[in-house]
């Protein structure tokens, strides 16, 4: 029984989470991350609309429209959770008290710039809370497909789309590989089975070095 690509990415992102962390998840693939955490881990999931301590999705029929995540989807809460207004939720972010944010993105540059708030002339969503999260979370992880629908690399030398924030991404997890960004340089640190360095290099439109202890991830074998 295979693990689909999205869940493989989410599984890898889940490894970034350690007990005691306050974690903010973006919409899309990041919302799958909680499904891949060890049972006994004590994490507080934070939402910009004013929740600390979100739990799993409710069973169908048990949704409460007044208990939703920042994306508007029903959630539950865990023991120790609390509600606050959105100003306080962002105070936590601005103060650097969110240990980790896991975001989707349209592009990430080799220096760690992130562009995920606007596509000129097309979909124009606005930045929402992405700017604060990218600029202020202690650690910024991006979960995104390596290339767009046309096969164009979303890892770039310099973002062509308007930036959300610059020099802030710490780790990028794609469907092919994992990159860490340290002091403005990108390092290929992990490869998802069955991809090779050559394949990843071919699909990546920016410079990167290769970690000495490159890891090969095969969740279906472990």
């Amino acid at each position, binding site marked *: 029984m295979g693990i689909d690509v999205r869940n493989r990415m989410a599984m890898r992102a889940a490894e970034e989470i350690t007990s005691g962390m306050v974690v903010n998840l973006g919409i899309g693939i990041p919302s799958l991350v909680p499904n891949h955490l060890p049972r006994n881990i004590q994490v507080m999931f934070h939402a910009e609309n004013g929740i600390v301590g979100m739990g799993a999705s409710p069973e169908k029929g048990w949704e409460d*429209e007044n208990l939703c995540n920042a994306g508007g989807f029903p959630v539950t809460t865990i023991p120790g959770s609390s509600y606050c*207004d959105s100003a306080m939720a962002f105070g936590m972010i601005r103060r650097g008290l969110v240990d980790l944010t896991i975001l989707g993105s349209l592009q990430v540059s080799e220096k760690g710039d992130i562009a995920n708030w606007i596509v000129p002339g097309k*979909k124009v969503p606005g930045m929402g809370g992405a700017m604060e999260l990218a600029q202020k979370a202690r650690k910024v992880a991006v979960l995104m497909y390596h290339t767009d629908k046309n096969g164009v690399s979303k890892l770039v030398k310099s973002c062509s789309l308007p930036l959300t924030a610059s020099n802030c991404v710490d780790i990028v997890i794609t469907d092919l590989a994992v990159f860490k960004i340290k002091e403005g340089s990108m390092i290929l640190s992990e490869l998802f089975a069955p991809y090779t360095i050559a394949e990843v290099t071919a699909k990546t439109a920016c410079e990167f070095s290769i970690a000495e202890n490159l890891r090969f991830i095969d969740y279906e074998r472990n």
Partner: protein
Amino acid sequence: MENPFGKITTLEQAMEYFYDGMTLMFGGFGGVGSPPALIGGILDKNIQNLVLIGNDTGFPEIGIGKIVSRKRARKVIASHIGSNPVAGELMTRGEMEVEFSPQGTLMERIRAGGMGLGAILTDVGVDHEFVAKDKQKLTLNGKEYLIETALTAEVAIVYAKKADPFGNLVFDKSARNTNPLVAMAGKITIAEAEEIVPLGSLDPEEIVIPGVFVDRVIPSCGVNWKWAWE
């Protein structure tokens, strides 16, 4: 229900505060926690040319989105309009002006308005081409900040779980979201409550917004839209 402060009223009477061209601030986040009866009243009264201030433009038929989709707003100040494609179309066609503010900055601007402050200083977006555009900057202790100005509105509308005759408000779970901030920032604040309870029946500790900030309270008819996830 006793009404010693004269704040409890009907939707019909509350509608007298609304007029074409006004600035209207609304509580809610993705439609959750937006006041359905007041939004319906604004549509029914056919109010036009609104300047809307709030977190987002909801979904096309959810929350404030119902007003936006029907082209009743000439301008929106929000953190995103991504969940309402109609808002994006109106903006692209030049039929509605949109001012984007980073979400946390927007919340602080609304709170600053409610607290009688002139502005707040933040470094969020200080180097950002769009966010920093046309804004004053100030350096404190060698660090650069944006001056983000306070926001108020002629009328603020919020959704509460419970209200008492003084206008003390309690919210429900994550439907609290932007409502306490918006409740403080209106020159007139109108709260739509799921339940109106007698004075003294709310625990003084549980009250999130003291009635000092609230001018009118109306009973809610309940949400009259279908949620995006339904």
